[in-house]
């Protein structure tokens, strides 16, 4: 039987790699391999997943050096020589084994004010929004984020400046800024223009390069840079 040579991170930040041998299948995902290890080799292995179909964003790990959604990453695509090195996501604290602590990631999500606050009440008539409106098109392009933190983990800026809001939160803020039904649009710009905000981004595009659902946070952040600069010139950012 063909086997895979799998190195798995164990413990917290001070931990190390443990070697496992797992059966190589014709067709299997990285998450399948992790699950096989947990069920057959060491039941104390901690990791996270839920949907297994690329919807929930909870299974992201670092595979052979790159952050990936493991439930949709085929082993054959990332480990040509049968070797896998699986670690928790980079740029986040490690709870145990392959489970990273996503609290900083979601705190920043809130700090970027990507929340929707309705400008009208439920009794008010609906305002028609055309799908071809430029703002709506921009919001649509950014909206399908599954909160997997793959981009956050790939971003060098987050590593260099830990307070930086990061690509996912800013991408969400860009969608909120472009939602014309949103009542807190100016608050979004204020939230993303401070020291931890969008102007930290160097446009490396590592986020866009790695986002598993093909979003382009770099593009969204560039949009925020323009929007905040315009608002500053108009004196709206006070």
């Amino acid at each position, binding site marked *: 039987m063909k086997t895979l040579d799998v190195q798995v991170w164990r413990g917290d930040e001070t931990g190390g790699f443990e070697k496992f041998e797992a059966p190589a299948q014709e067709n299997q995902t990285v998450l399948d391999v992790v699950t096989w290890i947990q069920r057959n080799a060491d039941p104390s292995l901690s990791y996270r997943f839920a949907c297994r179909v690329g919807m929930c964003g909870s299974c992201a790990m670092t595979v052979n*050096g*790159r952050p990936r959604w493991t439930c949709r990453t085929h082993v054959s695509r990332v480990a040509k020589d049968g070797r896998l090195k699986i670690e928790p996501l980079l740029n986040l604290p490690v709870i145990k084994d392959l489970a990273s602590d996503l609290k900083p990631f979601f705190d920043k999500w809130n700090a970027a004010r990507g929340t929707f606050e309705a400008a009208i009440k439920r009794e008010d008539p609906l305002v028609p929004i055309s799908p071809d409106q430029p703002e709506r098109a921009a919001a649509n392009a950014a909206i399908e984020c599954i909160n997997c933190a793959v981009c956050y*983990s790939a971003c060098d800026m987050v590593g260099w400046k830990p307070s930086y809001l990061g690509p996912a939160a800013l991408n969400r803020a860009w969608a909120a800024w472009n939602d014309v039904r949103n009542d807190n649009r100016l608050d979004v710009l204020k939230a993303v223009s401070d020291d931890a905000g969008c102007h930290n981004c*160097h446009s*490396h595009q*590592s986020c866009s*390069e790695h986002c598993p659902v093909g979003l382009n946070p770099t593009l969204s952040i*560039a949009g925020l840079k323009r929007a905040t600069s315009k608002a500053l010139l108009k004196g709206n950012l006070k």
Partner: protein
Amino acid sequence: MMRPTRKHSGYWAFLAHRLSGLGLALFLPLHFLALGTAIQGAAKLNSFLEWTENPLAKFAEIILVILLSAHLTGGLRLLALEFLPWSERQKTWISIGAGISLAAGLAMLFNLI
């Protein structure tokens, strides 16, 4: 070793831009030092300029032009990336930038040798 997350053209473009910028920053004081020799009279500056005719200085000049054009095209690429609407990943911009810098460097090379 380069972190795998950095192995894509956007990161190479960033590196080229940053390193050429640093190179130019190192060159600038030398440039002022050379110009400063004029204060001590034309002869001093002229003898320095004669010295720059040696092949090593010529070679350094080519590198300088490549750095300058790489930094210029890198800057233009960034401006385009952040101020123009774009929908595709801008790999083309990077190639165009690299192409122009290389062309500028080569033009210098053929003029000089």
